[in-house]
């Protein structure tokens, strides 16, 4: 990844954390995750990784077939 992209992402993350902490982020509905600063950082990263790994495992062990699978039968 290019350095300027990394820098922009880093700055945006800092900005989001600053906004979260400064403006006492609360959607007004008292969700438990609002008490964890940077919750959506972990949510985004882990969610993305888990989705990829889960989908790939599902494909590898169960659902992936050759392109001609239906044509052959």
């Amino acid at each position, binding site marked *: 990844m290019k350095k300027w992209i990394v820098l922009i992402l880093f700055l945006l993350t800092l900005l989001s954390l600053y906004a979260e902490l400064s403006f006492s982020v609360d959607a007004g509905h008292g969700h438990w995750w609002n008490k964890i600063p940077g919750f959506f950082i972990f949510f985004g990263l882990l969610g993305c990784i888990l989705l990829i790994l889960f989908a790939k495992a599902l494909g590898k062990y169960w659902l992936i*077939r050759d392109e001609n*699978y239906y044509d052959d039968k």
Partner: protein
Amino acid sequence: MINDLVIPPSLVMLLGAFLIPFLPKKMRSAAFMFFSFASLLYIWTIPVGKILAVQVMNYELILCRVDALSRIFGIIFAFIAFAGSLYSFHIKETSQQCAALIYAGSAIGVTFAGDFFTLFIYWELMAVASTVLIWARRNKDAKKAGFRYLLYHVFGGGILFMGILMHLSESGSLSVIPLTQGGPLSSWLILLGVIINAAVPPFHTWLSDAYPKATITGAVFLSAFTTKTAVYVLVRIFPGWEILLVLGTVMTLYGVIFAVLSNDIRGVLAYHIISQVGYMVAGVGLGTEMALNGSTAHAFSHILYKALLFMGAGAVLYATGESKLTKLGGLHKSMRPVLILYMIAAFSISGFPLFNGFISKSMVISAAGESHQELAMLLMLLASVGTFLSVGLKLPYFTWMTEHKGLKSKKIPHNMILAMGLVAFFCCLHGVMPSLLYKLLPYPLHFEPYSIPHLVETGQILIFTFIGFWLLRKKLRPHATITLDLDWFYRRPAGVFRKIFVDGVDSIFKWTTDRMMTLVGRVTRLANNPVALFSRDQTDSSYSPDTSRPRMQSILIFVLLTFIVLVLIGLLAA
């Protein structure tokens, strides 16, 4: 009985479909655009509250009923038909033009139908017209997928009609009004008929199977109408049915997971229709005014960015002849305008601030939060991670970036780029000025999408989804494979069923026909020469007194035998 002189908006496009074949060939593309635009103009100006009701036998059919909900769906259907007609301006196939107009007109017909019977007629018309847009691809895969698509919709339509008839016999009314949750069997049958068209798993395979095989321009229309008319009917009839919250939330993730595995760019987009419609279905399940507004707004936004995504993918297919990620790559230099316009749609569907997905998807998620449905809210947010991952990152990365596979790309017609630009403009416009969309919504709305919590939440999710993708991008490298889905249950046994019910029956008919023909042949030959039956000479020749006359001794033996029999009878009788 006519209550009010209002022409049903669906008739504008249906009239166009009727007239276009009679126009000179050169004028047909322009006429296609004209009737789409005229329909948009008419729906935009038609006042809320208008009703056209007619008495047919003992039933009152409400051919047209205009309210805020039907109007907003009508506007977006007509607009996307217009954008689609511009995108397909270079297509000179009258069948596709007429099918698209009938399809769009029927979707508008469903939207403004005030009674179940009218709704059902348009519902079925949509199924037939949309099938033509799949078959028009004119290859083996499209032909087969089109048949499966049509059969699925005939099945769904049958269930819907059964529900309507039962509802009529129970209530005596055909009016399209909200049905009570957990009501009689008729309500469940109507719900089942509708969720089949909404592509709610496990009834979604008609979509993921057929849409990637449709024509380039046909897929744009397909992406807009069938599932969204179903969403409209759900908002209209089933608000607050809790099962829809569960089904919708599952949908959002189901489509996302399968999109990760898809190798076909239009396959990825098709699965993301299922995922996005999930938000709308979940919103209906929540049933609050905010949630129903959210479902409606998201349907509106979705039609725009999804059509733009299919336009972008279609442009790639048009230029290269390929739609498989394994064969694409490195097209950013030769297809830069398409990439830019595609990315506007990708940012929209991913819910980037300043794009229309941001201002509509957040309404449904916020409505889930307001209703204290925290699990549904988190799962929908997780699905939005998957949306950005597949549509915003994986698809463009492996199509336009990565190494060039040596594909040559031909020039894309200007009208295609122009249509993409038009739709992209509205994706951005509503993202920047959400009130333009919000004021069309059916219920009063107090929602501020650009709040700091919402921006923080979205920003963090998007940034770290991108980082997650970058870390695992090699794992997402496409492979030349297909992914089994629930259509396996009818596609895999198809060969066996064909052998039993087609080939088996066919061979029985063939055997019977052969036997009958042999028998008829023999009887015919015998009729030509019955004497041959008694002759050792079994020739096929016709009777001739010279050659076929029985020998003298045969006649004498016959006469003698007859005489003996008569004598014996006489003796016994005496």
